[in-house]
């Protein structure tokens, strides 16, 4: 069912295009040698070029060009071997030169596409119009002084990739899916860390509405600098509702730039920006055309990591995972790597259940990621091995898991796990078998004890036995539960089932 919003006059369709500004992962800036690291003291990562001092000139950073090309390849996009830099002219306090070096008519990357997974499990292709390189602006702080704004140019000149989608998105869900997928691809490639809270990835959300079946697009508005996926989704809806209200009241939506007020859940117009549209683009005369070598591009392509879509397909094919589970595991390279390490030589579906279930849950609870999990792949694998060889059953295994995590997180041990390095995936620091023995968790497989326990339960519940025998099949679960309770959960479930079946029928 297509997403639609209800207005007073009926249904409305939402048309969304997303412009994502992704800060390029690089040591130094796009056109200057100043550092790009986040969080430095104000104006300490600023060169005279960044501050647009008289006589200063831009020189392009090879790594930024590489990252843009690799991103283009990751989006299945055309790489333009000749591209050009243009000046986008406007005045603002955080733009020292009074122009931004960007790319207008000849961007470095052309048309591409991203496959997104929608909430209902279907997939959809969203087109990418282009990707270009441009300078980021500095930062203005408006709340440090009663009458003045403070300018910090640390961020001025950092390389950005502007990734523009086609207006193929039709709902907040799709917008969220697109942003999450794009973010995932960028993180896989290592071209952007995708950290929206820190501002290294920002979205401008372009929204328009129209009646279902209407041809063409109506006027759109841009909601700028949305800094979380959730806010982007809310902004889509909030802005669409506002526009519907405008159209239905008989007025026309004016093209304008707006901001999303996350506290009130509405968009509002930006106060500056008159004449903002006359950027007077012209080729930057301080630079020459950027010409890329095909062999160089091919070499970059060959060395790309396996990307999320390919990895997901491989997981489904080789591990027999569902699209959903595979999708969850490959969202981050780190979770995918963790999974594959555990799955090696083990039942991939069992591993998938554990990783997507208990492991994800514990990471969330502890505020950890797959880069610094409390217990590592080898340790989780060891627990699963104990289930496989019958030492413990599945339910007890969860207790063992919890206990292991608890011990790992104890203050004396926390430092061991906080800064995990890749090699640590393979060493077992806390042996689950030790816990099993200490806690007496070994699975009960002694048929004599199980038989005796089953007999005791049956004897104590004759009324239920009669009900079961007269057709209440659901009561089987009650008996299983009682036997497990009586054995502190340690009885082998298969043996319990078998014994109960024999005794009850």
């Amino acid at each position, binding site marked *: 069912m297509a997403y639609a919003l209800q207005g007073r006059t009926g249904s409305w369709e939402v048309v969304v295009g997303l412009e994502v500004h992704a800060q390029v992962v690089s040591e130094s800036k796009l056109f200057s040698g100043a550092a790009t690291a986040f969080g430095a003291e104000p104006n*300490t990562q600023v060169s005279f070029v960044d501050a647009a001092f008289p006589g200063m000139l831009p020189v392009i950073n090879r790594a930024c060009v590489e990252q843009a090309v690799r991103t283009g390849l990751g989006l299945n996009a055309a790489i333009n071997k000749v591209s050009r830099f243009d000046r986008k002219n406007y005045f603002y306090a955080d733009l020292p030169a009074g122009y931004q070096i960007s790319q207008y008519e000849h961007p470095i990357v052309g048309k591409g596409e991203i496959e997104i997974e929608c909430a209902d499990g279907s997939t959809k292709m969203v087109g990418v119009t282009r990707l270009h390189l441009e300078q980021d602006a500095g930062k203005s702080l408006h709340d440090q002084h009663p009458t003045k704004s403070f300018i910090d*140019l640390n961020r001025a000149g950092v390389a950005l990739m502007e990734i523009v989608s086609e207006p193929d998105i039709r709902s907040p869900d799709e917008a969220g899916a697109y942003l999450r997928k794009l973010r995932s691809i960028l993180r896989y490639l290592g071209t952007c860390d995708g950290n929206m809270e820190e501002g290294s990835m920002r979205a401008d959300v372009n929204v328009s509405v129209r009646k279902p079946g209407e041809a063409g697009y109506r006027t759109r508005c841009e909601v700028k600098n949305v800094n979380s996926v959730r806010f982007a989704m809310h902004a889509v809806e909030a802005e669409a509702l506002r526009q519907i209200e405008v159209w239905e009241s008989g007025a026309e939506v004016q093209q304008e730039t707006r901001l999303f007020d996350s506290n009130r859940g509405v968009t509002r117009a930006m106060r500056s920006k008159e004449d903002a549209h006359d950027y007077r683009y012209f080729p930057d005369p301080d630079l020459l*055309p950027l010409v890329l070598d095909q062999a160089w591009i091919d070499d970059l392509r060959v060395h790309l990591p396996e990307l999320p879509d390919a990895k997901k397909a491989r997981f489904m094919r080789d591990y027999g995972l569902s699209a959903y589970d595979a999708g969850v595991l490959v969202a981050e390279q780190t979770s995918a790597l963790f999974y594959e390490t555990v799955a090696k030589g083990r039942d991939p579906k069992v591993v998938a259940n554990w990783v997507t279930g208990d492991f994800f849950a514990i990471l969330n609870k502890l505020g950890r990621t797959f880069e610094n999990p409390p217990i590592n792949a080898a340790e989780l694998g060891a627990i699963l091995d104990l289930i496989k060889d019958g030492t413990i059953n599945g339910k007890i295994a969860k207790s063992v898991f919890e206990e292991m995590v608890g011990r790992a997180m104890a203050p004396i041990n926390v430092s061991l796990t906080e800064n995990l390095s890749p090699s640590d995936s393979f060493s077992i620091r806390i042996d689950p078998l030790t816990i099993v023995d200490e806690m007496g968790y070994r699975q009960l497989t002694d048929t004599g004890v199980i038989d005796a326990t089953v007999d005791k339960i049956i004897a104590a519940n004759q009324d239920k036995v009669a009900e079961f025998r007269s057709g209440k099949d659901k009561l089987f679960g009650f008996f299983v539960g009682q036997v497990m309770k009586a054995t502190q959960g340690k009885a082998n479930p298969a043996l319990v089932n078998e014994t109960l079946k024999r005794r009850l029928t």
Partner: protein
Amino acid sequence: MALDPATVRRIATLARIRMDDAEVTTLVGELNSILGWIEQLNEVDISGVDPLTGSAHMALTMREDVVTDGGYPDAILFNAPDRIGDFFAVPKVVE
């Protein structure tokens, strides 16, 4: 393409240069004269010609991704007409 005072004012705003009426009037005359003189370029047959942007004879050379600059906030702020701490200060901007 004659300029009128409103256009001159719009350009002055784009260029962020304050202008009083007298100057606008003078500029309307001067700019129209210059633009009229420039019109002679319309005589030239430019069909099939690629625009030249700069007469340099090379393609862009790229530099290595190493931090070689920055780290001198005092020099950056030294010439600032209004410096507060380690920031440039401007009249407060409301977005």
